[in-house]
């Protein structure tokens, strides 16, 4: 099968070899665990524990605060130390539940109870996923139970297991596919059982031969599941591009994948669905990559949700001798968010930490010049926008025109910033423009509601 792909995109250096070779180990946190209440898209969760309560691993500590929201469970047993406002991994502040780890890892009653395949119904799957607090683990953090309940159930043609992992440095999905292919496929089969007309597709970039091989072996006997090898290109794993590659249909602003007949789940989410349904185990831990040229032993670990980022860096051997860290990113170098401190907890949707000895933004700023209108950004934009025009509008504050040229469709992949010969901070400009427009729309809506 020849590798398929979309139009546009870039080929950044992968650096996957840094962390791919090391064995995956479970890391047990030493310090307190912190659970921000807004670690998913939608309404923040509401705490159901109070300061001083004793909680067990897998116990619900905050319940979904609305339809689009997710439960949060404790990943360790211990005492609730505080519920307070703290800095989160994105640099913002949010209310967090802080749990002091008693190092016993006592499981809450019912966690780990195995379910038999014949007992599983659609309702049980949805309820188990909801109770487990599973969210999109590829980065977006969209509550999975909402994703699994589209209005047009029978129109769903594809359930895509996203194992592309196109972001440089990160290898956690690759390792997960190599280590637990059976779980991923069983998770995918559970999702497929909800959609009668759908076929399952496992999409993997062709730079992961080992993962492709294992997944193909497992999927060989599955009539409804196939493995689709896609070309190694960034952002191949972006939801919109993947749907376009697999199903041939394009997604537009305001549409969800279900509107074009696809459901996309990260392989880590499918693994979590498997755990939740078959083993009644909520989302407590995930594969997490710590990499970058400043890290001594870049590797993937199984980290408890809520573990401090600084502990995970220590788990990867800490910093290289004599290395000074210039840039810490939550995620990879393309879409990752720069972090100001390592003293923050990792969340469900985070998949990697990248520590670098150089700051590419700083380097770029030194040589930044005016836009020369070469059009390279438009050539690589995976959703076919014209970044140079969007940047001009954003810089001039002409947000009306920015919207008119579909600037809100931007997926913030950073391909334009990557190729720009003038080193312009395009992606940050668009992120800001989108934030300003969304804030204005919200204010307008509030003003209209007040009338």
């Amino acid at each position, binding site marked *: 099968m020849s590798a398929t792909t979309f139009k546009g995109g870039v080929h950044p250096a992968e650096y996957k070899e840094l962390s791919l070779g090391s064995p995956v180990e479970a890391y047990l946190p030493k310090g307190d665990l912190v659970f921000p209440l807004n670690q998913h898209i939608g309404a923040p969760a509401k705490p159901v524990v109070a300061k001083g309560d004793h909680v067990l691993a897998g116990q619900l500590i905050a319940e979904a605060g609305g339809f689009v929201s997710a439960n949060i469970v404790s990943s360790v047993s211990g005492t609730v130390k505080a519920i307070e406002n703290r800095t989160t991994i994105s640099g913002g502040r949010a209310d967090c539940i802080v749990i002091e780890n008693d190092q016993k890892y006592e499981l809450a009653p019912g966690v780990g109870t195995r379910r038999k395949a014949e007992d599983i119904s659609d309702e049980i799957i949805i309820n188990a996923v909801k109770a487990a607090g599973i969210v999109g683990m590829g980065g977006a953090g969209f509550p999975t139970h909402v994703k699994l309940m589209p209005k047009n159930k029978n129109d769903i043609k594809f359930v895509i297991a996203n194992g592309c992992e196109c972001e440089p440095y990160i290898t956690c999905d690759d390792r997960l596919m190599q280590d637990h292919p059976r779980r991923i496929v069983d998770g995918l089969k559970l999702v497929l059982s909800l959609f009668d007309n759908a076929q399952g597709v496992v999409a993997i970039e062709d730079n992961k031969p080992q993962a492709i091989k294992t997944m193909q072996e497992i999927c060989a006997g599955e009539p409804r599941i196939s493995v689709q090898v896609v070309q190694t290109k960034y952002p191949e794993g972006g939801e919109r591009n993947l749907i376009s590659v697999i199903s041939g249909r394009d997604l537009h602003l305001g549409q969800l994948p279900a509107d074009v007949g696809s459901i996309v789940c990260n392989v880590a989410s499918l693994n979590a669905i498997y755990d939740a349904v078959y083993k009644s185990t909520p989302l407590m831990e995930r594969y997490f990559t710590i990499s970058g040229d400043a890290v001594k032993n870049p590797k993937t670990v199984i980290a408890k949700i809520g573990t401090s980022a600084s502990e995970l860096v220590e788990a990867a051997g800490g910093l290289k001798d004599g290395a000074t860290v210039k840039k810490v990113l939550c995620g990879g170098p393309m879409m990752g968010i720069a972090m100001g401190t390592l003293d923050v907890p990792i969340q469900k949707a985070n998949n990697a930490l990248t520590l670098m000895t150089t700051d590419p933004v700083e380097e770029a*700023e030194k040589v930044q010049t005016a836009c020369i209108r070469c059009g390279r950004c438009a050539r690589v934009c995976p959703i076919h926008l014209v970044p140079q025009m969007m940047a001009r509008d954003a810089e001039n504050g002409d947000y009306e025109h920015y919207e008119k040229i579909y600037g809100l469709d931007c997926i913030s992949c950073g391909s334009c910033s990557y190729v720009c010969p003038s080193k312009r901070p395009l992606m940050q400009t668009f992120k800001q423009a989108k934030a*300003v427009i969304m804030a204005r729309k919200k204010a307008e809506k509030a003003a209209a509601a007040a009338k």
Partner: protein
Amino acid sequence: MGILVATVCIAVIGLLVGIALVNVGKKFAVEVNPKEAAVREVLPGNNCGACGHAGCDAMAAAIARGESPVNGCPVGGEPVAKQVAEIMGVEEVSSVKKVAYVRCYGTCGNAVSSVNYVGIKDCQAAVNSGLSNKDCAYGCLGLGTCVRACPFDAIHIVDGVARVDRKACKACGKCVIACPKHIIELLPDENQFAVRCANRDTGKNVKKVCSVGCIACHICEKQCEYDAVHVVNNISHIDYDKCQNCGKCAAKCPVKIIEQRFA
């Protein structure tokens, strides 16, 4: 000979068109409220929009129609209000001159900085990125969004913190809207004292990030004889309706964050 004919022709056409234009101008003249024109004359003409109208023309029309108060121009202040009141034939309503004030003194030496923000040099962009050059979550970022918003060149970044030039400020309020940290406010110009901090954390946490942050010690509150100073949400506030400019709060402030704006 040819040149003469051409000259005469052009002269005659010019004359006829001139007469026609004068007549058309008189016939189709748009009646302008004389007051509107007079008011427009005395308005500053910055077209800043601080009054809420689309520039000084629209403001003059609104005043002439009686839809806007005579002291509605924050830029012109009292002198303009007086002139406008005279034109409109109403008694002048007293207007208090205000100036913008930045509630932060976290200069490079005072504020603790553990992060180096690189990226677009704009405060809103920095807020969106979640990073800031200062550890204080409330203070001035010093990237100059307010400086670019000011139409009067009255606000500048001095040593990492925005500082308002009291004399140049016309209180149009553009910086107040532009500041993503919401630390700029309009104060009455005659009041001498102001709290130069906006940190709502408790004293212990403030000390960690800034040497001159309000630690909510309540000493200012106890010093004030006029019930004008109160600590709300861990930050001192001065009620300018009650403040008598005695300066006792500023004298006793242990972190010297209540500032005498001009001696």
